[in-house]
């Protein structure tokens, strides 16, 4: 998407999980998907990160609960998640910001790039949550 090009941060879509570092999960976990997601997660080489994109990936709502027999909940019920990006659907720049914030939390040199990006879109900081800030909540 030319307007939201992640490759300017050097991030590319990779075909095989072996070549990937960050796993972007969208959508709730259904019973059929459970072991596939675990297998994909194990195929990724260390160090690896998981980003849950969207409200249904973060918590499974609104599909989970109320007479639902096939949805187990959010992605964190199956694999450890490092970054939650809520929104239904989350805006593309929220996704870009989420990925950047995760990278910055790992590699402080990127902090400058992160602040630059924050200036471009006011109020974007509130749109994503790092996993550790979520730990206390859940």
């Amino acid at each position, binding site marked *: 998407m030319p307007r939201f090009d992640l490759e300017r941060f050097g991030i590319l879509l990779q075909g095989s999980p072996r070549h990937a570092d960050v796993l972007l999960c969208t959508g709730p976990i*259904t*019973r*059929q998907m459970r072991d596939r997601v675990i297998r994909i997660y194990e195929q990724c080489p260390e160090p690896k990160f998981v980003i849950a994109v969207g409200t249904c990936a973060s918590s499974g709502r609104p599909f989970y*609960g*109320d*007479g639902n*027999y*096939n949805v187990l909940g959010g992605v964190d019920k199956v694999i450890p998640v490092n970054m939650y990006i809520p929104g239904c659907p989350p805006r593309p720049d929220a996704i870009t910001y989420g990925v950047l914030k995760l990278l910055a939390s790992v590699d402080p040199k990127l902090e400058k790039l992160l602040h630059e990006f924050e200036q471009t879109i006011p109020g974007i900081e509130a749109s994503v949550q790092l996993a550790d800030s979520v730990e206390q909540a859940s």
Partner: protein
Amino acid sequence: MSEVAEKIMAQVREDYAGEILDATTMRRHELVFTVAPDQIVEFTEFVVQYGWWHLSTITGVDEGEEIAILYHLCGEEPPAATIRTAVPKAAARLQSITSVIPGATMYEREVHDLFGVQFEGHPRLDRLVLPDDWPEGVYPLRIEEIEKRAAKDKEEKEENG
């Protein structure tokens, strides 16, 4: 609209050799023909020749002790037609219409998954939407299953407040 529908319905009644239990209209623009379960294949063949060649879908509805199966068909212009049969829940058996309309394979597999209706003569009647580890014999859209889940949800809600 309704007099056009009446005229077509009368014409279908006497053209069709077999026996139509009842013919009504649903919401003024849909004709509904109720047919006995064993005549379903012949009547579908007749209806396809008559003009409703496109099978939109097959809907299953749990009506207490019977499962109603609705075949929604449509042609080039209104009114569209629906064939309705009811199958007892205990022995839910029905002849498959894939011989008449090959496109019906996936719809029948779905009704089999969710309502447990056996379609004889179906090329491959295995799981469509349900996961592989779903217990046999449990059909999620039957009324008793829905009540069971509603009760479980209620407890869950009380549990975590």
